[in-house]
Each structure stands twice: as C-alpha cells, then as structure tokens.
C-alpha cells in the first residue's frame, strides 16, 4: 500500500470515516421520512371549489392588513388575524402526539400537527374522507384491498368544508364538537361547524397558515 504522510492507513481511515458518516446521515433521513409519514396520506375528496396548481407552497410574509391563519397547538385555538387585529378566535383540536405502529409491516405513524408556515392550497365543500391504512389498523382491522377501495370512503366525518394547507393536512369539521380544545386528532385541525364556515369564507388559496 502506498504510504501517505509516513502512515499507510491514513487516507483509507479517513475515507472509511466519511463513508460511515454518509451511511448514518442517509439512515437518519430515511427514519425521519418514515416517522413523519402524513396521517392523511391517502387523502380527502369532495367537491373541490378551488385548488392551487401542484407546486411548492410559496413562503412569504403577509402584507400589512393581509389576513392569515394561526394555529396554536398548545391551547388548541385557531386565529384568523392581520398583523394587528384578531378577526376570529376559535377552539379547535390538533394532533395528539400519539404513535401507531403496524406490527405486521413495521410502518409507524406519529399523529402530530406539523409546525411552521404553510399556505392554503385547496378548499373543498362537503368533503369525504378516504380512510388511510392507519384508520383500519387503529381499529384492529386489515386495510381493504384495492378491489374494495369503496370501503375506505366516509362522507360523514369531515364536516361541511375542508381547507388544505399542504402535505395532506386539512382544517376541517368534526362530529365530536365536545372534544374541541383537546389534542385528539391524527394531525389535522378540527373546528366547530360555525367557526369552520366563517374561516372557509374568509380564507383564499394562498392565505398563509402558521402553526406553532
């Protein structure tokens, strides 16, 4: 072996270190991808009133006087506000933080509401829910095969409207208004019917949504 700096294994050792580092970083990325699997991965449907083109949501600062939505996951409140005024203050329910593991396949779901800045990318009337795999696994049932996809459809649980804010997460209604104020969801933000109607009327595609 060629001797480098008087030590035959200096470069191979450095190369090995870099390879191990790359493997660890890639492994960590893959793990994060798994645990941040969107709870609403198999979607929501309904009459799409408006939908943005399929491109990354723009991150920008609202202009003075512009309306934006804030979700406080700690106190479970949704605010529609401008920089200096609160236009709507509503009780909501956000993600529980619970983890579900599918023992059969090893898939993992973490039911958190994602934090950060998003934008409204879809608005739907009378949405229906296409139940993802976790909804069945949670109940101890096997997810239906593609041939029985209709078994996934549930037109009742989402309320009158759904406001999408990216990555498959929505602000939508609920059958269980008594649970508003408690962290019980699988990641979406649930609102009461009256507040949801008000919010739906006032937000547009592109309205900023801040979740903290």
């Amino acid at each position, binding site marked *: 072996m060629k001797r*480098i*700096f*008087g*030590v035959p294994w*200096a*470069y191979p*050792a*450095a190369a*090995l*270190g*870099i390879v*191990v*580092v790359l493997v*660890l*970083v890639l*492994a*960590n990325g893959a*793990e*994060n991808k798994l*645990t941040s699997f969107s709870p609403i991965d198999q979607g929501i449907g309904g009459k799409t009133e408006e939908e943005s083109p399929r491109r990354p949501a723009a*991150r*920008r*600062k*609202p202009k003075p006087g512009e309306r*934006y939505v*804030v979700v*406080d*996951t*700690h*106190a479970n*409140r949704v*605010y529609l506000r401008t*920089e*200096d005024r609160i236009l709507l203050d509503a009780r909501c329910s956000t*993600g*529980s*933080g*619970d983890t579900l593991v599918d023992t059969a396949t090893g898939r993992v779901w*973490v*039911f*958190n*509401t*994602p*934090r*950060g*800045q*998003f934008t409204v990318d879809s608005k739907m009337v009378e949405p229906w829910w296409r139940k993802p795999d976790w909804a069945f696994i*949670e109940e101890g049932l096997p997810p239906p095969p593609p041939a029985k996809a209709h078994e996934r459809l549930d037109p009742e649980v989402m309320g009158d409207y759904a406001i999408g804010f990216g990555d498959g997460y929505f602000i939508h209604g609920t059958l*269980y208004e008594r*649970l508003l104020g*408690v*962290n*019980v969801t699988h990641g979406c933000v649930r609102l009461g019917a009256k507040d949801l109607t008000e919010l739906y009327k006032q937000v547009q595609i592109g309205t*900023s949504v*801040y979740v*903290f």
Partner: protein
Amino acid sequence: MCSSRACGIIRLAGFALVSCMLYACGGGESDGRGQNASGAQKGGNGALVLVVDFERRQFELVQGTVPLWSVPFFNADSTEVNAWVESFGSAKDQSVPLAENILLRSRNLLTDSVIAIVADASGFDAHLLQRRIPARFILRWEDAALEVESPVSAGGPGLRELWHNARSTARRMFGEAQMTLVVDSLGALTLQRAAVPPLATRVRPPKKR
C-alpha cells in the same frame, strides 16, 4: 507513531464521525410532548421567537417578523423592569436563547373523569391528551429569569418548588435579575408549552419618558 498531518486527518475523520453520530441519534429526542414540542419549524420566514415586550406590556410569539400570538402581562414595576432589561443584556434586535423552562405548579386542564372518557373514546393515551394549566413557572436565560404566574388555584408549593425557590434566591445573590409577571391562564398554557429551550428571545424595553 504517525506524522502530525496524518494524525490531523485521522482526528478530522473521527470528529466528523462522532458529530454525525450525535446528529443521527439526536432526531429521537422527546420531552413527552411529541416530536414537535422542540419547536421544529418547517421552512417559513424564520424561526419562532419569543418577544418580551415591555413597551406594550405583553409576551409575543413571532415567526420571523410575523406576529402569531400575544398575551398581556401585569405587575411589571418600572424600576424593576429597567434593571431586568439591563441584565438581560441583548442589544437591539439580537436574541438570547432561553436556557430553562421550569414548571413549578399547575392544574390539569381536564378532570380525571373527563380525560378518561376522552382517552377511551379517542383511543389515545390519557397522558398525551392532558394539558396542565401552569400556575407558576420560571423562564431563565443566561443572566435573567422571569417568574410567570397565572390566577389558577393549584394547591400549595411542593418540595420541587421549595427547592427551586432556594435555587432562585442563591442565583439572585450571584447577580441574576429576577422579576415576577402575571398572565391569564390560557396565555400561561401557551407560553409555558411554546417556550422550549433554546427558543430565541428578544426584549423590547419600555419607552423612555
């Protein structure tokens, strides 16, 4: 054993390896509030910042420069405020990382019977669904601390609180600036849960008269 340059390369590789192992293992950190509790933010116009605004007498959470949430505080004595702001020590628009957030006294948001029903109905662990309304907690930075209280009845002080009282007294003797502010209970809930170290904090001093 080996030349200094070769040893340097080996040390560098070792350092990179250890750093990345720490990075790789750090992703699973949890404080019992779910993976988002560390305040991880997705993109957006800057990270979450806590502003202690003595001009408008409020705590404020902003993302970048966009105001998200605020709660007014009371009991801020002007002489105390000036000394505290001076000790906090940040220059204009510079932030200081929050070092500690210690919950000393609290009351459950829901009664045990309600949380049991909700946990049963939703299938989630009761402890994940429960929120505690803080009655008293301490936010501490490098050279300054704020004790935040809310009008929530939460029983008498426990051993932990007495120990922290003694610790605060000792720190005051060593020059830590301390002040007590009062906020409403819902505001205390958000503030205590959102203020996760090392949350960047800025102070807006009171207007000079």
